[in-house]
């Protein structure tokens, strides 16, 4: 017995030594710290990719003027009547704009080389070089008159074809780089200052650039104030009437009715939450359409059929709040109901014999003990309502006439789906950044006000 154990132990020794060696190689793997990082890595990568990156990119895009027109890669330098106007209006370089916009004709070696290529008579080219090289004309007619005055007078068609090659106007020209733009401009006006070059490049660039213009526009736009008010109205009404108020009514009502009907009742109120959003909103639209249930029913009483949802701003708000509220009420209902269930039954018995009827029990026993659940639901739902978009988008799409346009919907309409077709990614990102900042500030206020640690630390209800 002893002998065999000795053998076993001596046989195990080399393995132990080997294990010790391998531990040396991957030592960090056998510490909980090293392993922890290893196991966390996939999660960290996912968080960075799908959570931090979008937020960071939103922050980046917010400081650009990206749109469909600029694209998200670099652009070219396009001189157009529009850019010349920008040069005049924004940079006060009207004179330069006029000069660059004028058709200008310069007889230069470049033009002569082009003529040779075209197969123009060598004599004509030579006489052009001898007679006109270096001359500048403000109009084609003047140039053509001088060409006709040459010793070897070309026919009219050739004159046209020659003058074309000396056109050095910038108007409607497109350059792939800044250098070629400046070179072309200098050909017209060799005395360009650096400032003028800068302004020209900036005003003709078609790609995106860095800018804080988005925020300036947001701050000064009257639409901002309207949408902000809409958002506050929407969040406050939905939150107070449905997500906490109606949720509380449901929770208390189901507390006082027997278990089975209470369960069925709660499941019914869960339907809006668990049914697909599109179908849920379509049912509401069907209800409110001019050929839908409401109109059909009311037409019996001589009411003109109409689209009740989009008929007036008031109606639209009513439907938006109800549609969102019915979805949101279920969460509060579940949280409140379980909190009420956690109140010991003996407290209700005690309150009954103390003379408190149901309404007084609700006021003195249930509500004071639901302080924390109410605060939790309020915080959580404020933040989720601020960013909620799907029901409103499907129901009114911000209508009628922008009456129910809330902030998140406005972002969508600006950046991802607008009427003009020029999607303003940069502007949308700036709006989203504002929403993110509002959300973060609100969360911090909530966490501080309601002392999040106390909220999650231990149950408030003592048994």
């Amino acid at each position: 017995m002893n002998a065999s154990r000795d053998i076993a132990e001596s046989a195990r020794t080399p393995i132990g030594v080997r294990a010790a060696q391998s531990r040396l190689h991957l030592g960090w793997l056998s510490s909980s710290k090293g392993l922890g990082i290893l196991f966390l890595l996939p999660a960290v990568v996912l968080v960075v990719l799908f959570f931090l990156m979008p937020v960071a990119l939103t922050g980046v895009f917010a400081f650009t003027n990206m749109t469909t027109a600029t694209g998200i890669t670099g652009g070219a330098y396009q001189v157009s009547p529009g850019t010349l106007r920008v040069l005049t209006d924004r940079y006060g370089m009207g004179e330069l704009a006029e000069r660059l916009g004028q058709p200008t004709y310069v007889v230069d070696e470049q033009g002569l080389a082009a003529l040779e290529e075209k197969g123009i008579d060598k004599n004509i080219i030579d006489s052009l070089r001898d007679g006109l090289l270096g001359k500048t004309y403000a109009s084609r007619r003047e140039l053509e008159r001088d060409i006709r005055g040459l010793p070897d007078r070309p026919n009219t068609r050739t004159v046209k074809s020659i003058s074309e090659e000396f056109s050095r106007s910038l108007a409607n020209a497109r350059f792939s780089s800044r250098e070629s733009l400046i070179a072309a401009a200098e050909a017209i006006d060799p005395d360009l200052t650096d400032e003028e070059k800068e302004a020209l490049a900036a005003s003709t660039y078609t790609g995106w650039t860095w800018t804080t213009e988005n925020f300036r526009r947001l701050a000064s736009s009257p639409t901002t104030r309207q949408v902000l008010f809409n958002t506050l109205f929407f969040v406050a009404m939905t939150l107070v009437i449905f997500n906490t108020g109606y949720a509380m009514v449901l929770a208390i009502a189901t507390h006082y009715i027997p278990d089975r009907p209470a369960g069925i009742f709660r499941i019914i109120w869960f339907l809006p939450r668990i049914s697909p959003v599109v179908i849920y909103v379509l049912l509401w639209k069907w209800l409110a359409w001019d050929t839908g249930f409401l109109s059909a029913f009311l037409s019996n009483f001589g009411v003109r059929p109409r689209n009740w949802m989009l008929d007036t701003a008031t109606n639209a708000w009513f439907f938006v709040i109800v549609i969102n509220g019915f979805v949101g009420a279920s969460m509060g209902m579940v949280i409140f109901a379980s909190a009420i269930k956690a109140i010991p039954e003996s407290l209700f018995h005690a309150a009954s014999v103390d003379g408190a009827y149901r309404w007084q029990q609700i006021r003195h026993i249930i509500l004071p003990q639901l302080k924390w659940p109410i605060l939790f639901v309020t915080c959580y739902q404020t933040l989720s309502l601020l960013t909620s978009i799907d029901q409103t988008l499907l129901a009114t799409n911000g209508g009628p006439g922008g009456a129910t346009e809330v902030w998140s919907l406005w972002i969508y309409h600006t950046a991802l789906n607008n009427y003009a077709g020029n999607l303003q990614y940069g502007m949308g990102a700036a709006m989203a950044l504002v929403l993110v900042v509002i959300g973060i500030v609100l969360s911090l206020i909530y966490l501080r006000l309601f002392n999040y640690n106390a909220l999650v630390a231990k149950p408030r209800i003592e048994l």
Partner: protein
Amino acid sequence: MRILLEHFSKSFGAVKVIEDMTLEIKDGEMLALLGPSGCGKSTTLFAICGIHRVTSGRILFGDRDVTNVPSQERNVGVVFQSYALYPHMTVADNIAFPLRIRKMPEAEVKRQVEEIAGLVHIEGLLGRRPAELSGGQQQRVALARALVRRPNVLLLDEPLANLDAKLRLEMRSEIRRIQLETGITAILVTHDQVEAMSMCDRIAIMNAGEIIQIATPQEMYRNPRTAFVAGFLGNPPIAFIEAEARDGSLAVKNADIRLPVPKNATVPPDGTPVIIGIRPESLGTEGDATIRGRVSFIETQGRENLYDITLENGSVLRSIQRVRDDIALDDVVEWKVRSDDIFLFAENGERL
């Protein structure tokens, strides 16, 4: 106030918990509803305070029929087993709750809260919350809240079950003192016979939804109506041995022991199987009959020792005596029984 239950029945669905119970609690009396778990004593209490509706029968407070009066209007004070203090209110608010619900003027509320706080000795705790109180203090607050409305009847549902042994002793006498001082009619629900005997004027002992016997503690101890009652009262408990009536005396089964028939019992006909109940204090050094057995266990209780003696038929009797040095484990002893203190029961548990 006199409380009367008349032919009271209560069932939950198909389960009959109480059937046709009639019980009177006299004005100013403290009555214990004593019984094992599930015997229906708490159900009875909840019916009196109106939390449970009765299935049939009547409940009278004085001459007033309150059978269909909601609990809010019965004016009963209840101390629940868990005390059921409102955790979000201070002690003062807890006690004031029944008064404020009745819309009593605030000055009067304050005066009465202070008065009752003085009665139960919690004047210094009025500003605290229930979570900041010890079990005994919570108990006093619950008592104050139950008493402050001057209830028709005070109902106590296992009030001492959640306290430790020492506090239990203290609160036992406290509750009795307060009940006597206020002169209130009180019902104590308990499964602890010591509580029932030490605190109450009378005990109603219950089993399986029925009241077996109602009597003063002394009377019930001395004169139990059934073997169940005898077994429930007394600590250490009574011991039972099977026997048979033979020639006007009692022959213990499978043992050479003969006991005379006690004076409190009628002599059963020969051959009747009977059950003899012997309390631990009836077996010892004095008496007119002898029992022989082997000491199988000695439990030291300090002032006294509890001896188990095993008879030759295997039955075990208990004897409580002052500490003796002359008895050791496995000694064979012959101890005396006072035959007039033993109880004789029929096979079905009825007293003979």
